[in-house]
């Protein structure tokens, strides 16, 4: 069975989230002392409660499969015979209100990822965390890591301070485009605002469900503000978004654009036309109907074979066994999802690390 994934690129795996204490050794004296003096010993967002079923598949939980690079490699790279896996560290750097703390922790987390994970298995690649609280400093972090080709993507969250298309964030896109980084937007929130436009939901199920609304907003913002007009080579990867929300949202956005496009005159084509050039989606979780035939009808709504990227979302519990792809996908599309689309999305992946 694992043969059928041979050579695939897993575009979303998660090393176990480090504690501040694990990152402190990668900080300078001032910040190391700060972490200790101020007692910053936990910094856990509520996005993935450690013991929640979704956070870790039971068999992987039992084996502590996310604990270190070797365990992760065994459960993903070796098991599925993958060529690469892209590590998305979910340390909640975006949650800090202090941009100095954010910058210190982002750099430390990136150096920790490079040393403890990317350096331990040559098949692993990484996404760089950014102190998005200060876009110029986020761009500096991209410059700092640009020479290390093991970093193939920069990572932001589905919900932050402001929608990501706003021009204050453009220094990030300029730097990412310049160095061939994909811009990953992962499920999660900085929790700087209530999770919905109607306040805080009660249950974790609602929190996770609301993440897809965050992706709606970010995609609408990136398109409407003209990010893809300004940075036409930019690839934005929507990671852990659920996938199937996208076509209906684009029908709406395109319809509204047809009606009110005098408001955004720089958008010179139907919003959905940006998707094929600039937007990609990781395939887990896949919010779909039960049968392969129906899934085929949902996938047809994407109107493109280029947009989906293979991802296990390890160790999150999105599927059981080896059912990492939803049923109903043709052999040729499967090949594109597993290998061709990721290679086209991450130009740095093809370069020697």
């Amino acid at each position, binding site marked *: 069975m694992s043969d059928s994934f041979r050579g695939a690129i897993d575009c979303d795996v998660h090393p176990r989230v480090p504690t501040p204490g694990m990152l402190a050794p990668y900080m300078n004296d001032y910040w190391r002392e700060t972490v200790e003096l101020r007692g910053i010993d936990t910094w856990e967002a509520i996005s993935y409660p450690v013991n929640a079923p979704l956070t870790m598949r039971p068999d992987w939980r039992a084996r502590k499969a996310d604990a270190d690079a070797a365990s992760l490699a065994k459960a993903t790279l070796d098991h599925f015979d993958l060529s690469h896996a892209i590590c998305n560290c979910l340390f909640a750097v975006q949650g800090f209100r202090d941009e100095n703390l954010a910058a210190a922790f982002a750099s430390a987390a990136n150096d920790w990822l490079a040393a403890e994970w990317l350096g331990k298995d040559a098949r692993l690649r990484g996404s760089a965390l950014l102190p998005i609280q200060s876009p110029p400093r986020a761009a500096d972090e991209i410059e700092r890591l640009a020479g290390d080709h093991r970093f193939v993507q920069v990572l932001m969250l589905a919900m932050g301070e402001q929608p990501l298309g706003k021009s204050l964030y453009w220094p990030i896109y300029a730097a990412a485009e310049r160095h061939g980084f994909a811009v990953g937007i992962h499920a999660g929130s900085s929790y700087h*605002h209530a999770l919905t436009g109607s306040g*805080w939901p009660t*249950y974790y199920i609602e929190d996770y469900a609301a993440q897809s609304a965050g992706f709606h*907003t970010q995609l609408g913002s990136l398109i409407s503000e003209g990010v893809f007009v300004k940075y036409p080579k930019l690839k934005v990867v929507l990671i852990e978004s659920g996938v199937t929300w996208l076509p209906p949202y684009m029908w709406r956005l395109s319809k509204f654009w047809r009606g009110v496009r005098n408001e955004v005159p720089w958008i010179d084509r139907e919003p959905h036309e940006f998707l094929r050039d600039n937007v990609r989606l990781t395939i887990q979780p896949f919010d779909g109907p039960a049968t392969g035939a129906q899934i085929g009808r949902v996938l047809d709504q994407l109107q493109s074979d280029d947009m989906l990227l293979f991802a296990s979302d390890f160790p999150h519990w999105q599927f059981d066994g080896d059912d990492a792809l939803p049923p109903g996908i043709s052999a040729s599309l499967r090949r594109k999802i597993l290998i061709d689309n990721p290679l086209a999305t991450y130009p740095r992946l093809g370069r020697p690390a």
Partner: protein
Amino acid sequence: MMLDAPRAPVHEADADRRADAQARTRLEIIDGDVHPALRSMADLKPFLSPQWREHLEIYGSRRRSGFSYEPYPKSAPKACRRDAWPEEGGPPGSSLDLIRTQYLDAYGIEVAILGPLGASGNSELNMEFSAALVSATNDWQREFFAKPEPRLKASIVVPSEHAEASVQEIERCANDPAFAQVFMLTRTGEPAGNRRYWPIYAAAERHGLPVGFHVFGSGGHPYTGTGWPSYYVEEGAGHSTSCQTVVTSLVIEGVFERFPRLKVVIIEGGFGWLPALTWRLDKLYERMRSEVPHLKRRPSEYIREHIWLTSQPMEEPENRRHLFDTIEWIGWDRLLFASDYPHWDFDDPFRAFPAGIPRERHQQILSANARAVYRLA
């Protein structure tokens, strides 16, 4: 007031359309979303006490968005069709005559449900004023529209952040057949399933009235979980996300377990988003049932039984098959036609649905489904 806004044309075109509509074998039409408008705030004054009249005069409408109107300028005056401004002055939706000639008569509308927006009392910061204003809005709908024109049905607008006053308002209006539903907006102060709103649902269920959630409103939060978008196009497209919050919260909080006869109508948010949300919620429920032991069934089952959606603004995929698939997944019995008259993105009942929709399905959406939802007697 938009003094130089374009006026409604003479209505020969509508007469043609009327003939055209009669020429086809007639489809009955019930419209789930028509917007009445005040000629000016003076229209509400007869329905406000002297104290609140004075309050309105001095302090005006102060809403949870920081503005007296909407925080996103529209793309047309009052977001209305440029041909819907009445000859006699006042904004679109304020002239019963024009609503009749330009819309009800021209299209052969059997019933239209009113959805009062603007200074209707929703989203007001002052709760007591909110309660007074919605009462006035409800009386105004009845006296100006529903009483003189039986094809128009009023909605019971409630001051939703003040549950006690909301219940009082429902009790005050519910026995009057002029009212067809309870009316809330999608952007509430807490997600709609929160227990602070349960008394409203209890009252609606008790009276057999559906609760309509119309898009818009300001609950006191940025309109998205990631802050304020810049543009009206984003806000417009994004209404489907606040609709998703409503459905998610009602289902996951167990509102439909608690109020098993409650009917909910999502208004003006389109419907294409519902299948993906339903699949998502079912999967999350399967994973984390232990978090929500008050739920006895899968989210999709509550949605299938309790949620209806109005059709406008219709999603328009390039391939109409995608639209039919979507309706299939939602259920052909769950969609209610709405025109959104007199707003700019008006849907024509005969032209909004793509060619190829089976006639009996079309009829279902245009009127049959609505009969099962609204109290139209």
